[in-house]
């Protein structure tokens, strides 16, 4: 057993999840692969979205995977960082927009 919760080498073993549930695992990877193909969005655009989401989800495996994927696609460092800011802005916006809920509640409770 690994002494830490996350082990970078585990990313290589991702495909093994199929071994304990073949049909669902295979369907997932089939879907996953299809999602990242060129479509209405380019594969490059999808990679940047994945990189941003990897950060908002704070998934270290995804961050490793999509940082490498971005480099492979020739995506520049400023583009990568801007994508993360988009994720961060939505995260902080999502927190702050709940401030309206707080304000509504205060207004309802206060005389």
């Amino acid at each position, binding site marked *: 057993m690994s002494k830490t919760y996350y082990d970078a080498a585990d990313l*290589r073993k991702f495909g093994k999840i199929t071994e304990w549930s073949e049909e669902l695992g295979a369907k997932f990877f089939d879907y996953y692969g299809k999602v990242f193909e060129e479509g209405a969005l380019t594969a*490059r655009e999808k990679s940047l979205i994945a990189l941003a989401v990897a950060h908002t989800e704070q998934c270290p495996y995804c961050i490793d995977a999509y940082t*490498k994927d971005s*480099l*492979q*696609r*020739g995506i520049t*460092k400023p583009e990568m960082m801007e994508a993360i800011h988009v994720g961060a802005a939505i995260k902080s916006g999502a927190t702050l927009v709940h401030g309206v809920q707080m304000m509504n509640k205060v207004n309802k409770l206060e005389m």
Partner: protein
Amino acid sequence: MATKSLKARNNDIAKTSKQLEILSNGIFSDGELPTFANKIKETNQFPLRPKKLEILQINLGYICNQVCEHCHVDAGPDRKEIMSVKTMKQCLEVIKKTEAHTLDLTGGAPEMNPNFRWFVEEASKAGIKDFIVRSNLTIIRANKKYYDLPKFFKKYNIHVVSSMPHWTRGKTDKQRGNGVFDTSIKALQELNNVGYGVPGSSLQLDLVYNPSGAFLPGDQKGLENDFKKALKEDFNIDFHHLFAITNLPISRFLEYLIASENYEDYMVALVDAYNPSAVENVMCTNTISVSWDGYLYDCDFNQMLNLKVASNVKHIADYNEAILEDRTIIINQHCYGCTAGAGSSCQGTVA
């Protein structure tokens, strides 16, 4: 950024035996990853055999004005291995009678061989269809004596293939050294000025991209579009095609992979991306590589690992295409670099 070759630094990895030992041990000996031989056996592609010869690639020497971090040749200003006139004459005899449609001169910086121009002039008389010189671009601006290279290339209708790791300064200079980007841009503009790379021009100018780090190249066409757009918008530069080439885990790139603790992940990435259809067209099946001292190899990478052809004919002096075609290609784990994804060769993707 190294300023000397592995050889000049007396680095252990300069020894080809050491490189082959690394490539045969570790994750390949403990069974985590299949050896290349076992992998191609799965698809009945073992042993790898040559098809018809198409490309004769000649390495004019390992001397270079640059010391790129990823260089598989371990080239640099300190390398003394340079093709002699005697070997060049032997090569010219072969060039006159070869069935190959492409002659590909490489190095090091081939232009630094003192007899480069004479050799090009003589070789051009053979009338080979596609005559390539692999130029690193900065050589054109390295010294006044090279300033007229664009015109020289034009005179002999040379197909110029040049390295350009990125369209941004930072990534280029990190891989190839400070100032390389600006000098390369200037050199490309000068090639454009004499007609190279311009849309519709017969003077072919292609660029080679290899990743500046421990990752594989992305889609060649997508990268070509990005390069074209950026170089045109920022510097008004035109070129014809972009070849995306995978860095093979040998020589200085192997040293980098090990030092940066990326070796295992990189090999896993190569094996994961293994593509049997790339094996069909891998360049060793249509190429002969000639070293500065006239020995023959299945490819430039095998040359750098000192793996001479498995044939009775091992030297340009004894060259015989029919005998050479009847050989088995020597493989090792570095070959995964040519079969990953869309495949990789000196002419770009193969699948």
